[in-house]
């Protein structure tokens, strides 16, 4: 679905390539959250300067980070596994490069491919889902790795 959308935006493929190159030059991937080891949540807490509250569930736990801006970030980590979902909600977007890690480039691709992308964004692949919406003062979104969601957990619960 995304691959078909990617070629359609008003921006050219050349601009897309330039943007990707600029991204690589500017951003040094830090400890990635989504898809990274469970332990990487700790580095996110430091990077975001956030307070944290962990809630254990069967086979996974939810770490809720309250950023200085007031934005809430939730990271879903499988115990002894990886961070399989992240979500955000609040007055300012979190550093999405930090939060999405290696999947930030997919966010950028989806952003370019979604008409009306300034107020919402969709990426729906079989392996990766990224959804975002809102407007200034009120941003929300989530991303998850479908194959890494523990058995019995609904994607609807990942918010």
């Amino acid at each position, binding site marked *: 679905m995304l691959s*078909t*959308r990617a*070629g*359609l935006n*008003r*921006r050219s493929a050349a601009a897309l390539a330039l*943007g990707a190159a*600029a*991204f690589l030059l*500017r*951003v*040094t991937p830090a400890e990635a959250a989504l898809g990274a080891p469970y332990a990487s949540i700790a580095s996110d807490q430091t990077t*975001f*300067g956030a307070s944290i509250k962990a809630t254990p569930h069967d086979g996974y736990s939810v770490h809720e980070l309250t*950023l*200085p*801006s*007031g*934005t809430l970030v939730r990271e879903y980590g499988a115990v002894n596994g990886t961070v399989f979902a992240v979500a955000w909600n*609040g*007055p*300012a*977007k979190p*550093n*999405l*490069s*930090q939060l999405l890690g290696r999947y*930030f480039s997919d*966010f*950028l691709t*989806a*952003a*370019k*491919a*979604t*008409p*009306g*992308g*300034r*107020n*919402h*964004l*969709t990426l729906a692949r079989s392996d990766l889902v990224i*959804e*975002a*919406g*809102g*407007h*200034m*003062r*009120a*941003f*929300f*979104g*989530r991303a998850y790795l479908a194959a890494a969601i523990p058995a019995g957990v609904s994607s609807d619960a990942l918010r």
Partner: protein
Amino acid sequence: MRCASVLPMRAKRMLLIAALVVGLGACGGKGTLASSGSSSGGNVTGSAANVATTVVNAGPSGDVNTLFTSVTICAPGSTSNCQTIDNIEIDTGSSGLRILASVLTANLPIQTDSNGDSIAECTQFVSSYSWGPVALADVTIASETAASLPVQVIGDANFSTVPAACASTGTEEDTVQAFGANGILGIATEAQDCGAACATSSTSGFYYGCSSATNCLEIALGTASQLQNPVTYFATDNNGVIIELPSVAATGAESLTGALVFGIDTESNNASSGTATILPVQVGTGYLTVSLNGTFYDQSFLDTGSNGYYFTDASLTECTDTNAMGFYCPTSTTNFSAIVCGYDGSDSCTGAAHESISFSIGNADTLFSGNAAYTVFPSLGGSFPTGTTVDLGLPFFFGRNVYEAFENKSTSKGSGPYYAF
């Protein structure tokens, strides 16, 4: 929140399919309220000191359903260092006036922070950002002036190095073509673009202090120095606006002319008497709740900066043609009834002030193919991904007079923030 354009018009022309315009019914987002509301249906107020002419047209980059006006900016106190700029998008989803540097000829002073450093902003949209310094300007719209207003200059060549943290928020929109307008007039219910989050935290990602044009660090910035809804800076008629647009034929129109009226119940031409129910929105977020198909969407909003009705409905077919990606393409035009509820802190409409509305979603591919010159489509819609939002975009405003009262402002019908239509 604003919403980007679809495709350049030339792309539509290239994809001209036989203009098989199906019967689109009579419901294309018209102003007739199903409830007892007595609001006027898109009567456009004539010329006056507090009335700016608006137009929906292709703008500079081939947009659809995008509302524009023009503004005059001057260096503070100057009557000669001035410029009138057209193709300024009107956006109820953001606050603040932002101008693309490439169209700016007036010379504006850059605002400085407490360290004497130039202030720059990384404007956050859902999926993109715009980068550039914050300047001061006297801004005149119609005959109303916002004096010494902080405005953003997007894509200023003197601030060409985008900080890494800013680039980490999305895609860059720092040119007219990418932005889809020469600038944006943000008139959200919230007075500032960031508010307390930026006043108390230096890591909200919006504001930067630049000791040089290439060395910018994130800063906290008080609300008074942040970008402001320009209307709130007017000496009079500053408590809200009325967005007035006529109705449109279901098949669309080449352009649409309307009015942006400043003030509510402050002049003889902006009386709210007889208008519909006051629908409060949540302070800070602008959210209200929309009930649609038995679901309550509690992160819903009205947004002139969105080019369609955006909501989740699995029964509506998504377009597959490259001409209309991201929009709905139902086999036949589909009618919806919904209830727009004022924010009352609950997850439902129980007890909240509310208004019933109806709208239609047409086949975007068919609509775009019908007439390549059309830029106004009352039944354009698409999916909104998160399942918590009905985004009532610009088509909702066709055939309506929508009253928007700002936060911390009072009107004869009550205090903002609220909408009424």
